[in-house]
């Protein structure tokens, strides 16, 4: 395998995951929280694919593909929730959405 070893990819993935986790915990806008979640999922995907390459097994790539499908589903539901919040006049702030009622 040419270029950097698997460890380098995993380090980038770790930093990316930390950034995403920071965004999820720090930001109040549900839109940004959703985007930061995507960052975390993608960091996990990068590790899966890196180790799939190291092991020479395609199972990791299949797993990554499943994660992508779940992420797509998550975005669809998350955006649906955000739009529903906005239409009901709830402020787009994860701290203010405290009750699970319309």
């Amino acid at each position: 395998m040419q270029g950097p070893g698997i460890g380098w990819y995993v380090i980038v993935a770790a930093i990316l995951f930390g950034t995403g986790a920071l965004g999820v915990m720090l930001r109040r806008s549900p839109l940004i929280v959703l985007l930061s979640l995507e960052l975390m999922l993608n960091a996990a995907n990068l590790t899966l694919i890196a180790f799939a390459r190291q092991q020479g097994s395609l199972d990791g790539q299949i797993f990554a593909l499943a994660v992508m499908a779940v992420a797509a589903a998550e975005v669809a539901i998350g955006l649906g929730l955000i739009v529903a919040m906005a239409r009901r006049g709830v402020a787009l702030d994860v701290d203010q959405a405290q009750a699970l009622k319309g």
Partner: protein
Amino acid sequence: MGDFLVWVVWFLAAGGCLATGVAVVSLTNPFYSALALIGNLAALAVFYLLLSAEFLAAAQVLVYAGSVMVMFLFVVAYLGGRADAPWAGGPPLLRLAAIVAAAALLVEVVVVLGLAWGDDLRGAAEITDTFGSPGSIGELFLTDHLLAFEITSIVLLVAAVGGVVLGTTPEKKDEEAG
């Protein structure tokens, strides 16, 4: 020479990946944040190509950057000014705790990596040309991972139905409140 070029491409992708990642988290306008995430996905697709995951790189750009992010940008445009996300964090203690928690996560991974560094993380298996090609992925999906494939389709169906349910018009009294 080829090895050097791979390193250059790797560093460009890593720089783009981390810079756009920070941009996603720090920008106050979700529209720009989403655009930064598209850049992040593109940089990750470069990584996937370097890791011989051709099909996943293509799927990443087509499915993620192509359709999921367009859906996201649609919603940001629909929300307009309400979508703005100024840096109004919670209580200072909460912010500090968030930074500490994220740093702890990072340190954890770095320590584990440091322990495993060496031959474990340097070597890579010998692979054939078809590794990561659509053909080999599809073959695995329809043989060993058929159940996962079918369950994925059900998950997507449930998400689609959920999106429709969430998107239906709210009751009258709620509309007045909004």
